[in-house]
């Protein structure tokens, strides 16, 4: 069983319940698992999930259809691992355990949720999560004349390509100001595969990863820049597990921008008189430990009033859409995103910046009625640089 990889962690789980709804000023956590917060039954808590996984692994619990919904209800956000005080492996990785359990459940022939079947079909047929015409993927770049080969390649991802072309265009134009000319795979770029990495379809995920890896290698890129937190995590961490050593560097745009600002290669001159806050995407924050770079970038915008939400960095709540939750349990996603936007409202934020187009999609649905703008980092940086995108 895939969950067998986590056997040691499962036995070391001390059932302390830190991962459930801990409030601790000392630890800096104010309720932990968003799913538990809204579902409130023990089996939805990370601790409960770890118990269930161990019982299944040791043969005390059969793998049955009702477990599928449970396994697919985990956000994969990793906040439970972040707070976990376990003495082994830096904490019990319940997100990884649920990911493995999804595979195990499907491997014994149980049926995945309908939304997962649809998602897999979309990606297999059109190479994007929306099932839209693959030719539309590159339309954001039509007038930019980006080469398909070069040292620094931009990996745009599905959400940015189809829903947030302004992020992609802003990224290209900002970097041009710093003398960095990006190359782009065009329609040779497929979905990064992160949805399949989480939905139990590991064979499709592996195929996609190998396909993208070969395409990037062929482009001659020495560095790959990603704006989407999910794509960045897939390329930087998951691909290594699948293809082994990667002969190019993966950089998230927030790190690159922070570096360019520090070297005075780009300047943010246009004042933005707003109260701004930053939402840590799980894939970039807890999964990749990039917390400071996006904040460093935002704090360079003139005349902003930057405020931190109560739950930030490693204790930040997920937007509610992680690990395909938004497709499988949209109502739960909405409740969690409302709570997250509520935190921004609480500190008087006019705008929330993030580094993940899925977070933007999820948060925007509830932010608009609260009159809170949601920006992708490159978009607000372009605005502060006075760039037309």
């Amino acid at each position, binding site marked *: 069983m895939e969950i067998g990889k986590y056997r040691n962690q499962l036995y070391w789980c*001390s059932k*302390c319940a830190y991962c459930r*709804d*801990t409030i601790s000023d000392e630890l800096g956590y104010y309720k932990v698992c968003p799913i538990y917060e809204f579902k409130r*039954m023990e089996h939805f808590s990370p601790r409960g999930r770890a118990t269930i996984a161990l019982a299944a692994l040791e043969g005390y619990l059969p793998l049955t259809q009702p477990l599928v919904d449970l396994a697919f209800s985990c956000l994969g956000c990793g906040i439970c691992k972040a707070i976990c005080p376990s*003495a082994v492996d830096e904490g019990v990785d319940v997100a990884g355990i649920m990911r493995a359990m999804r595979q195990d459940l499907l491997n014994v022939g149980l049926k995945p949720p309908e939304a997962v079947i649809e998602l897999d079909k979309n990606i297999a047929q059109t190479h994007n999560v929306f099932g839209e015409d693959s030719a539309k993927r590159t339309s954001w770049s039509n007038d930019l004349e980006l080469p398909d080969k070069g040292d620094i390649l931009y990996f745009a991802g599905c959400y940015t390509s189809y829903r947030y072309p302004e992020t992609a265009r802003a990224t290209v134009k900002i970097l041009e100001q710093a003398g960095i000319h990006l190359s782009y795979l065009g329609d040779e770029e497929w979905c990064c595969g992160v949805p399949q990495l989480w939905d139990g379809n590991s064979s499709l995920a592996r195929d996609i990863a190998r396909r993208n890896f070969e395409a990037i290698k062929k482009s001659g890129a020495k560095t790959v820049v990603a704006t989407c937190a999910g794509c960045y995590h897939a390329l930087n961490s998951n691909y290594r597990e699948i293809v082994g050593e990667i002969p190019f560097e993966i950089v998230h745009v927030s790190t690159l921008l922070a570096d360019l600002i520090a070297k005075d290669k780009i300047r943010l001159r246009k004042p933005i008189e707003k109260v701004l806050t930053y939402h840590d995407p799980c894939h970039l924050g807890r999964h990749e430990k990039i917390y400071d770079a996006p904040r460093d970038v935002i704090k360079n915008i003139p005349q902003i009033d930057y405020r931190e939400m109560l739950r930030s960095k490693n204790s930040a709540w997920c937007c509610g859409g992680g690990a395909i939750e938004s497709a499988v349990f949209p109502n739960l996603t909405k409740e969690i995103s409302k709570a997250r936007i509520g935190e921004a409202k609480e500190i008087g934020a006019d705008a929330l910046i993030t580094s993940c187009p899925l977070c933007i999609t999820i948060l925007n649905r509830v932010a608009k009625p609260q009159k809170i703008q949601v920006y992708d980092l490159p978009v607000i940086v372009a605005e502060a640089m006075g760039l037309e995108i």
Partner: protein
Amino acid sequence: MKSLLYRQLSELVGPERVSDEEFACLAVTVESAATGLSFLPPFSGKMVVPEIVVKPTATDQVSSILRLANRLRKPVVIRGGGTGTSMASVPTQGGIVLDLSDMNQVLDIDESSMAVRAQAGTPFGTVRHELAKRGYRLGYLGPHGTWGATLGGVLSMNSTGVAGSKYGQLSEDVLTLQVVLPTGEVIETGSRVNSRANFSFRYCNGVDITGLYLGSCGVFGVITEAGVRIYVKEKHIAHGTFGFKDLNRACRALHEISRVGYVEDYYMLRDRHTIDLVEPNAPKEAQALLGVFTETHDSRELEAQVHNWKEVTDNYDGVNLDPKFAKEWASDFKGVIHAKTQSQLWLDCHIWPILRIPEGQDDMVRLFKENESIMSEDPNTGLRSWGLVSAGGAKHPMSYSVSFFRVDRSNPSTMMKAYELWHRMIELTVNKGGCPYYFGREGLAPHLWTKAAPSYYYYLKTIKQATDPRNILNPGQLML
């Protein structure tokens, strides 16, 4: 088609707060320590997966659930944070698990009587956070490292914990309780016996019935609310770590500084093997390692207390060491103890006077050494995992003392041997006069009852029969 019981409970609390899925019922059978994975050997034959789990939010719902359980003669097992170490929340006869962790509201902070009233399922982290906003604190800060433990769970276990040396166990600060009796009636205790009074005092209105419910493992009723004393939060904190040539000197020094109230809590490693396991970088000559901390309102007072630590420990040839150990282990604001010691441990927690800590230690060390072959290797040091510690969970001059060992929890035959060793360890402790503060069912009860007067046990049994005629509430706990 859902069962009649499911439908009846759903009517009482809403269907989203009830589950009869097998995995949901299994998830509420576990707790901390080696005894915690009740579905695995050697406990798998003793635990019975419950039929259903229900999560009330209000006292009247608890009352209705108990009335229903009486009518249907269904056993009910009460569950708080599920972080205990005595199997008190492990079902032995199936039935209903009453998960109180959604009764989690801090109801009132009364500054005039310096008390807080909260629902029983409120975690310690939540209580502390709400009090800190107004500059207050509980005395006892929660069981060692467990912010997820709940007020009701701790009171039902008489749990010890952080800051206990100065403030005592939480039970000592209880003023009033609200309790749902096994048959569903609701009572209030202490000053709240007078329905017009506040939750301000315990010893009034006649009999101190509050004490019946403290440490009772829920056999006489379900604690649903508690009124507890609060204190003004201190501004200054200091930590100190001291190494001693032997355990006797360490205990005498500790006794001297704690009897004048200069220690809020402490953590003591009682022999060299335990030091090597937990704090291997301590100087080799140290045979006992003591970490202490104190909190004060005034910086000069803090200075005076720290000065006293140095003076007293000097008198006992103590060596002043890096306070890191004390910061990590004695105050334990970050959960280190739970993380590093509670997972998979076989424990014999008991209350014991500080000056008598050395008594019987040699016997315990001998027992552990004879059985080292079953113990697992510590992942950091490679040493066999056993040790002897004392902490300030109980008010001075008492200590909370523990002997512990760890085996590979995934190996059933080793677990059976560990189970036998565990009983030998507890027998040794109880036989020399150690008093287990929590009781539960599996570990401590059989050892204690053989040393108690039969009339005491029968008295408890009589109360149980009178208050819970169908024996539905936490059956088997306290061996009742």
